[in-house]
């Protein structure tokens, strides 16, 4: 009888194994989902026992012709009013300096341009992105290559028509005014150094547009925000102003999407505080006062979760550009 019992146990064991394996599979299905959620949230990298400073210092870089303090003030006011934290703005000398301030925890928040954020990461700054700024609700913008509309009438000229012509680029550290337009051309099989007859450098985006308007260049690289909603007016020295329903420029080509400014915190900032700041930034879009003021002073109107893939794309484009440059010089 004992034999029979053993056999029946073996039978039970076999059947139970078959029965439980799908259960294990069912349980196994749900486990990675939870793990992935935790892995994808970059703020988990913050220290749960990190520092909680009495004042939140927000570091930015100065912009030409603009009052940095006034630009940042709506954000400072919003954080103090809505979240009860004490905040103040800190103006860095430039992006490299801002990276140093973040690394040394001289500021709790740093707001970087996309390329400067990528460069900061390359320098191993211990920063974690908590948000990407938005303009008109979009966390990305495009780089355009534009031509003078009057020269082409109602026709949309093809890019190939600008072979051997003059192109106005913004400085080499500009993402939408130099890096991305050149990457776009390479992607379309065009080497800008060969394709164009002359590559000119403007002081900034507006100046590049002015050069096209004034006939100093046939094509200009500029951020989409400078083209889509504003146009060159007849004011002297290329001042721009709005004019509804018409544009002096025709867009000939567009780059890939470029993420807007990146908001970072240091890794040693307390995780809960990091979470609170991110929630605060994401909620800014729902605060009409802060939203409107920030739009007026900075051209931004809110923040969303960081566009990590977009910044990775910038890093890739930047590296490709460097390699191409090294190839040509070397």
């Amino acid at each position: 009888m004992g034999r029979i019992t053993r056999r029946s146990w073996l039978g039970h064991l076999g059947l139970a194994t078959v029965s439980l394996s799908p259960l294990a599979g069912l349980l196994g299905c749900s486990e990675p989902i939870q793990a992935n959620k935790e892995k994808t949230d970059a703020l988990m990298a913050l220290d749960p026992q990190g520092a909680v400073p009495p004042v939140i210092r927000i570091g930015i870089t100065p912009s030409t012709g603009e009052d940095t303090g006034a630009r940042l003030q709506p954000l400072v006011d919003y954080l103090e009013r809505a979240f009860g934290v004490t905040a103040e703005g800190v103006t860095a000398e430039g992006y490299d300096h801002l990276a140093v301030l973040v690394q040394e925890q001289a500021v709790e928040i740093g707001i970087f341009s996309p390329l400067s954020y990528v460069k900061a990461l390359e320098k191993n700054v211990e920063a974690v992105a908590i948000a990407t700024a938005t303009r008109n609700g979009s966390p990305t913008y495009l780089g355009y290559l534009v031509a003078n509309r009057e020269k082409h009438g109602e026709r949309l000229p093809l890019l190939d028509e600008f072979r051997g012509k003059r192109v106005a680029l913004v400085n080499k550290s500009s993402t939408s005014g130099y890096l991305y337009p050149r990457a776009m051309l390479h992607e379309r099989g065009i080497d800008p150094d060969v394709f164009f007859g002359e590559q000119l450098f403007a002081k900034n985006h507006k100046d590049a547009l002015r050069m096209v308007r004034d006939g100093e260049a046939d094509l200009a690289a500029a951020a989409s925000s400078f083209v889509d909603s504003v146009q060159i007016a007849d004011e002297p020295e290329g001042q721009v102003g709005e004019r509804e329903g018409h544009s002096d420029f025709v867009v000939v080509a567009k780059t890939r999407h470029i993420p807007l400014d990146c908001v970072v915190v240091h890794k040693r900032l307390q995780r809960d505080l990091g979470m609170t700041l991110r929630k605060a930034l994401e909620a800014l879009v729902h605060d009409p006062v802060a939203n409107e003021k920030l739009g007026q002073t900075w051209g931004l109107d809110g923040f969303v979760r960081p566009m990590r893939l977009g910044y990775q794309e910038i890093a890739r484009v930047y590296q490709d550009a460097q390699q191409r440059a090294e190839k040509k010089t070397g």
Partner: protein
Amino acid sequence: MQISTKVAFAISLIMLGAGTVGGAVALQQGEQSRLEDFKTAHDDSVELLAVSVAPAVAEERFERVQAVLDNVHNFKERFPDVVDIEIVRPDGRVIASLDPVRYNTVIDVPIPQGQSFAVAETKETYTVSRYIKLKHSLGKIRATFSKEHLNARTEVLMKQALMLLLFSISAAGVALHLVHRRLVAKRLSRLAKAAGEIEKGNLAIEAREEGSDEIGELAHSFNTMAKAVRHYTEDLESIIAERTEELQAANKRLEQLATTDQLTDVWNRRYFDESARRALEVARRNERPLSVVLVDTDKFKSVNDTFGHPVGDEVLKAVAAVLKENARKSDLVARFGGEEFAILMPESGIGLAAQAAERMREALESDVRPRVDALGDRVITASFGVAAFENASDRLEDLLSAADVAMYESKESGRNRVTVANRHEVEDPPSASSLSGEIALEKGMAADGG
């Protein structure tokens, strides 16, 4: 493997097969249904998008059209199926694209003539092309959607269905196994055990009769059969015992016939020879004395001739009886042939044997005649020859020959006497009584003449 396990596995496999086929059909239908929903939803969304962007396209506010697509790009998690969207002018120029690099390139978006839209489908993607219209055609929109999530959903559903199916079937298998084991296998096992007990010879075993189903009936039949086997066995044993007893009696009778003289009821010559050889061997081995006495009935022919053979037979019976009565328990009396008898005397030297022979001689002389009425006053005597085992080299034939010689010497000396074989030195000299016997014998023999 137990029968219950086999049954459970077999039924589970059948269920698995049926479940797989049924599940596959259900999944196929579900997949088809989800695919139709998927297409309908995306057809609708493309139509909605075409309507939404039409005014901006009409005004050539391409940046506004692009802004719509930028939202799709920037918040991809909200539009997980969208792979690509392109909006083209009637001349084929792309005026907005999910990938802005394609702006102002020329592509072909074919829509059959007379139709407002077209679809193309691969295993991985679904593409919808549609005209953008207000009062007239402004261009086309082409949107490509990935079926990855749909396929993944189908795959997940398939896995879940398969797991559920396997789990259900396994659970059903276990349940079947347990139920079958309880209702069938265990009961059959008990019956097998009972049969095993019967095989071992335990006929008193009885199987437990549970329920009124087939196995219950089988148990009942088994018990009936066991009972019948028990009865048959008992009867058989009784018959065998009876036959064995009869056989033993027959064997005994056969043995008796083979070793006993039928007329006189003393041992026959064959038995005497066998016994004498064994006794001689024992005596030789143990250096013990042994004697043989030969007895020949005097003038027996005369008795037969005078009184007839039946009386002669009666005389022989009486002689044998007297010899037996006067022999020791350890002595062996045998009819040696005709009217001659032999007596084997283990543990007796020549002296003791001679004394015993003399005692027998006297007994014959006095006791035979009264036992056979037909003899009247005719006295029956016998001549004795005694020989003893003396040398290790002596054979039975030597002893018998010596006794025979002595017996004939008794005959020649006048019958009715005891003569000790004079082979060697005599252990014990004949007693005085034997001498008187010899005298008496001489008298008897003179009257008898044989």
